[in-house]
Each structure stands twice: as structure tokens, then as C-alpha cells.
């Protein structure tokens, strides 16, 4: 049996890979997302975010009261291109996630 522990099951990111990112000096949620791909799969971080933040807090790399999750990307739930093709042409709206 493998002893690998998966933190992000969508993108197969293991605790080992996160340790590796920390060893290389990365220390924030956004950086670790972009180094390991954590949270970019179908669940969009709903499963793995807490584990990662818990780890950062326990290492003293994040402050439990101040730490933020990475920017949430729309849509909130996956939607088909077929359904979205019916969205009307309207003036561009501002806002949303960056």
C-alpha cells in the first residue's frame, strides 16, 4: 500500500509536494496553489483549502485570524457551454473575482 497522503484529490497534490513548496520558500496560499496546482480541479478547493491553511497556521506561516482563501473563480458550480450559450449579450459588467 502506498503511504502517500493526498491533500488535493482533484489534482493529486500530496503532503510531500506541499512540504516541497514550503522547503523552497513559498509560504502563501496563492503561491502554493500556483506551484502545486492545489485547488484548481473540479471541487475548486472546497476539500483541500482547510487542510492547507491548517498546515500554514501550524507552521507559523499564516495568522489564523487574517489568512484568506485564494480568490474564488466563477462559476460557483460547473455549467455547460450549451447552457451558457443562451446568456444574452448585455453591456459589460464590472466586478467579480480578480
Amino acid at each position, binding site marked *: 500500500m502506498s503511504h502517500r497522503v493526498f491533500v488535493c484529490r482533484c*489534482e493529486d497534490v500530496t503532503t510531500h509536494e506541499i*512540504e516541497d513548496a*514550503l*522547503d*523552497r*520558500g*513559498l509560504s*502563501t496560499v*496563492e*503561491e502554493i496553489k*500556483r*506551484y502545486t*496546482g492545489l485547488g*484548481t*480541479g*473540479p471541487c*475548486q478547493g472546497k476539500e483541500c483549502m482547510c487542510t492547507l491553511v491548517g498546515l500554514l497556521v501550524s507552521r507559523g506561516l499564516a495568522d489564523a485570524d487574517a489568512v484568506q482563501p485564494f*480568490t474564488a*473563480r*466563477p*462559476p460557483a458550480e*460547473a*455549467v*455547460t*457551454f*450549451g447552457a*451558457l*450559450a*443562451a*446568456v*444574452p*449579450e*448585455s*453591456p*459589460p*459588467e*464590472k*466586478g*467579480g*473575482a*480578480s
Partner: protein
Amino acid sequence: MTVTNEMGSADAALPQRADVVIVGGGVMGLSTAYQLMRLSKGRLKVVVIERSYLVSGASGRNGGGVRMQWADRQNVELMMRSIDICKGLAQELGINTWFRQGGYLFLARTPQAEAQLERNAELHHHVGAPTRLLSPEAAREIVPQLDVTDVRVATYNPDDAVVFPWAFVWGYAAQAVKRGAVVRTHTSVERIEPEPGGRDGFALHLSTGESIEADTVINATGAWSVGLNRSLGIELPNHPHRHEIMSSEPLKPFLDPLVVDLACGLYFSQSTRGEIVAGVSMPSEGDDADPTEINLGSSMLFLGRLSRALCRVMPIARSLKVLRQWSGPYDVSPDGDAILGRTPGFPNLIQMCGFTGHGFMMAPVVGELVARNLVQGKDHPVLSRWSPGRFDDPSYTGRGETMIIG
């Protein structure tokens, strides 16, 4: 645990003076830092200063498309060299770049677009790029899922490619640091000042209260470059433009090339992770209101447009789901050519901006040619052609690259 800071950090120690300070830790700044260290065999003192984390700008938000199919001869040749560098980059940088040469397939639906693709194919043939002009039916042989009704002609270049952008940026950063460059993150350059006392260098003032002197400064801040230039009274005509993009749920590999529908500026490819990554041209949003302000946000309008265009050309996409959408800044140059080289009035300030929607693919070759220029004194034709001074030249025609997408 030993933290090695091998990809830069917020507390990397800065020297008081450097030979070259690169402002901006995107793919441009980092590829240049790496090449400067490599070509000078570690002799140059090079510092990169990044306001946020390393992939926070356009370099962490783009589609990863890499192509030699351009309308301008010089761009074709530059990209042939860049793709050549990309082929060996995984080994050179010791990372997985997810570089996949599945080609680019361009579709033309109008007589103008058809003429453009025919001109491209002829030019590419002359230059030695393996682009082929294809009938719509032949395009369907490459991507059987396409609906090619109304398509007049297509071009295909099997050497064109896609990459997964994040890895690239980390790879360049790690190799630059390994060779002695200092990469300081979470620190912004607030102001640049010419050095007093007749030297042609600069003093850079940082958000941390520190300052650093440099013989040469490279402005590699992309869409943010306008503000930095203004701190020196420099006005250049590039401006930021929000470009939206999205990715789908992952699928088994089925789509080899990146497909571009020239009629609406739709592009889509399948990344090595399996997802469809796509964007489309959007109406202008009055970009030039304030060129120092960058809007990043996502719109429903984009998803609607994109979905209609995609379902038209690849109907099976109807049942595929969109997983995430985001945006990033294009750094738009008015003639479609980058703004690269010495700044009028400030010879030791090198501009490296205006790369619009194709700076990622050009970073490997541009970093190399700029470093060759600085370390070995080698000239390159783009350094005059893309010169920041060209806009003031009486013979300037304003004509540049015409195959810009998005």
C-alpha cells in the same frame, strides 16, 4: 526543515548596488534574469524586484499558447527560435514545462482572413516554418469534432505548441537564483530616480523603505509599466486591457492543436492537464481612460460569447462544463509590436513591455536577445524595430503585426 528560498522571497537580502535591477517578476523579467546570469557566467550582479508573488501578473494568468504562425517575418523567425529554446527548456531548467507540440490550426471564414492565411503560408514557406494551407475537409482530419461549414481555408503548423505557464515561471526563477541572482518578492518599486553626480544609473525607491542603485534598470512590469515610467516623466503609448479566459473540466486527450477561429477571435486548446482552455475577442471597454488602472474581473458576457462561438465550431462542447474563469491584463501596444530597448533620454533604462497577448511565448527568445545585448554587446534587429523611440520617429508608419488574437 531548511527553507532554501530558491525561488526568491520577501526577505532576500538586497545589495546596495547592482549591475542590473529588473523590475517585475513575470516571465519576461525572470527569463532575462536567468539569461543574464547564464551568459555572464554569474559575474553580473542581478536583482529582480516583484511587488507581489512571482506568477501574480499576466504570466500566471495566460493561455500558454506558443506559435510561429505570425504575419510578420521577424515574428515568425523569433518564434522559431523561441520554440527551439522551449524544446530543450525542461532539461535546461530541470522542471516539467508541460510543453506539448500539437500545432495551431487557424480557420478563415471571410475573404480577408483567407487572404491573410494564404500570405502567411507563403511567408512561412520562405522562412522555413512548416505551415500548411489546408482545405476545410483537411482541417477536419486534424480535428474531427469541428464543424467547418462556412470555413474557406485553414492553416496548420505542427510545431506550434501549448505550455502550462506556472511551471515555466518557477523554473526560470529557480535557475536565476541558483546562478546568483537575487529575487525579492512582495516589494514594489515606488519610484525610479536618475542617479545624481553625472552617472547614468538610477536609484530605485522601494515600498519597504529601502533603496537600491543600479547601472541598468529593466522595466519588465508589463501592464503596470505606465505608472513606473511616469515616475521618470516617460510617456509611452502602451495601455492595459483586461482579457478574460476560462478552463473546463478535464477530458481525456482528444484535441491536438490549439484552434483559432479568426472570425470572432475564439481560441481553444486542450492543456496537458486535460482541460479546454479558451478565450474570445471582447468589445473594447474604454481602456484608455486611465492607463495606470488595471481592472481584473470576470463577466457573464464573456462566457456567453465564448460559449456561442465554441459550440458553433465544435458542437460537442455543448455538454462540456466550464469549471473556472478568470482574467489578466494584456499590455497593449498600439501597433501590435512590443516596446523593447533603451528609452529615449534614459539610455540605461531598458523597456520590456507592450507584449499584448503574446509575451509568454516570446519570453524565452526575448530574454536571450536582451541578455546577449547587455552581456556581449550583440545587436538584434528587433531592438531598433521595437525601440521605445519609434513612436517619435518621422518615418514611423504605425504598421506592425496583424495576427493579434483576443
